[in-house]
């Protein structure tokens, strides 16, 4: 199996406060890796280090290695990096504008202007996100009129439109109803063949349902990582056991 993202001794500090400590972790290609852990464990910071959104925050210092396709993310051209590694945020953030414009935003950034090509990409992405059937008749209406679940799937479509290889999702289903959540989980399963997913989730059961491997973060440390089944039935670390069984959280 190909190693897609590798973190070696990754440390992140913000204003001298340690957020991530000694993270050693590998994300394999075409897997769904779930990252679980209580709030403030550094899960989001880890994601934002990968696509370098962390750089926009003041006072952060990153040390150690963080590689995408064997090259440190710092050495990647940042715009290219962010297209290779897409991100879905916890709150769906549709850009003001039409559904079409939202999904076409990424491709337009790359310079694609032909309406025909854009329309093709938009349809392909919306289908992949399981949203096409619901919006195909109103592509040019405002994206803000969609429901929460639809908006999140729109964000997924928007990210897929730039053809990333890795998709990072930061608690994408928080605040969504169970049906929307199920739809998104289903999308993950179908898309797995062509993408690598990193799924940060507060919902332990979701991790169990969807992921191949699971990593447990606690207070900025990677406590344990392994196949999902093993993490949930026979965790090696007591802390992991406490968390997945609900004793701490």
């Amino acid at each position, binding site marked *: 199996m190909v190693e897609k993202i590798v973190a070696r001794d990754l440390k992140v500090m913000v204003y001298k406060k340690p957020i991530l400590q000694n993270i050693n972790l590998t994300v394999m290609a075409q897997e769904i890796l779930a990252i679980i852990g209580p709030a403030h464990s550094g899960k989001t910071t880890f994601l934002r280090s990968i*696509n370098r*959104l962390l750089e*926009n925050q*003041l006072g952060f210092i990153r040390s150690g290695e963080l590689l995408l396709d064997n090259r440190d993310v710092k050495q990647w051209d940042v*715009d*290219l990096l*962010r*297209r290779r590694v*897409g*991100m879905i*945020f916890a*709150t769906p*953030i549709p*850009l*003001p504008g039409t559904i079409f414009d939202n999904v076409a*935003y*990424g491709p*337009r*950034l*790359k310079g694609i202007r032909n309406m025909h090509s854009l329309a093709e990409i938009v349809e392909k992405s919306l289908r992949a996100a399981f949203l096409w059937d619901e919006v195909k008749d109103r592509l040019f209406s405002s994206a803000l009129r969609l429901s929460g679940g639809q908006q999140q799937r729109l*964000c997924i479509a*928007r*990210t897929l439109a*730039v053809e990333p290889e890795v998709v990072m999702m930061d608690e994408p289903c928080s605040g969504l109803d169970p049906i929307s959540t199920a739809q998104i989980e289903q999308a993950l399963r179908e898309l797995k063949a062509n993408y690598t997913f990193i799924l940060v989730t507060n919902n332990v059961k979701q991790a169990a349902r969807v992921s191949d491997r699971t990593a447990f973060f606690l207070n900025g440390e990677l406590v344990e990582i392994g196949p999902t089944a093993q993490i949930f039935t026979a965790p090696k670390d007591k802390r992991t056991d406490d968390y997945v069984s609900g004793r701490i959280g």
Partner: protein
Amino acid sequence: MTCRALIIQRLVWFGLALLTFLTLLVLFFIIGYISAKGAPVITPEFLFSLPVRMGKEGGILPTIIVTLYIALLAIVVATPFGVGTAVYLTEYSRESALTRIIRFGADALAGVPSIIFGLFGFILFVIRLKMGWSILAGGLTLAMMVLPTIIRTSEEAIRAIPYQFREVSYSLGGTKSQTVWRVVLPNALPGILTGVILSLGRSVAETAAVIFTAGSTLRLPRTILDPGRTMAVHFYILAREGLSMERAYGTAFLLIIVILLINAFSYLLMFRLTRRLK
């Protein structure tokens, strides 16, 4: 609360309300007085014909055209600089000595009296740069006058855009300039436009800076290098020289109508803007 204190409060309430009412009265009086004497003068002939005998008779068409040219020129020149400055201050820099200096420059420029702008425009544009009295000189001078307003309102509008929008763009591989151009500015447009429209109003009302840069000829201008008289300047000259009180009132009325409309329009925009972000 003592009884006495409550009585004092009642009295104060009445006193302050009275003074506020007085202030509004002044406003209504001014508008009413000018409207009463000036509205009857507004005929299509007045608006569209040329002045005769230095404005004693005839219409005010050239002044309307000159006012339009100068005001438009001012905002066409000032807006790119103003918006650009606002973009730099919000997107491309953190608070530092440099940004403080930039802001100081804008604030200080806002406080310069209009007559000083007139002197400056005269010596630089009219004389040294050899533009002569011209709409161009007037427009450029006015552009500097309204620049701080555009900077201030644009910055406010840009800062109101939630940071998440920018993050979405970045996460899709957008560069900073792409993000500003495609996400920030289009969404900040209503706020920016408000500032531009307010500046339009100010340009229309301005007299001291214009009279020394655009001149006071009553001829119809052909290019922006021609001199011209704006409505405000025309009104001033008519009133001062006592040439035609009737036409003075008419010009003043037109001025006030235009400014009222401009103000109303900018409020409409602000209203739409606050509704949109909710």
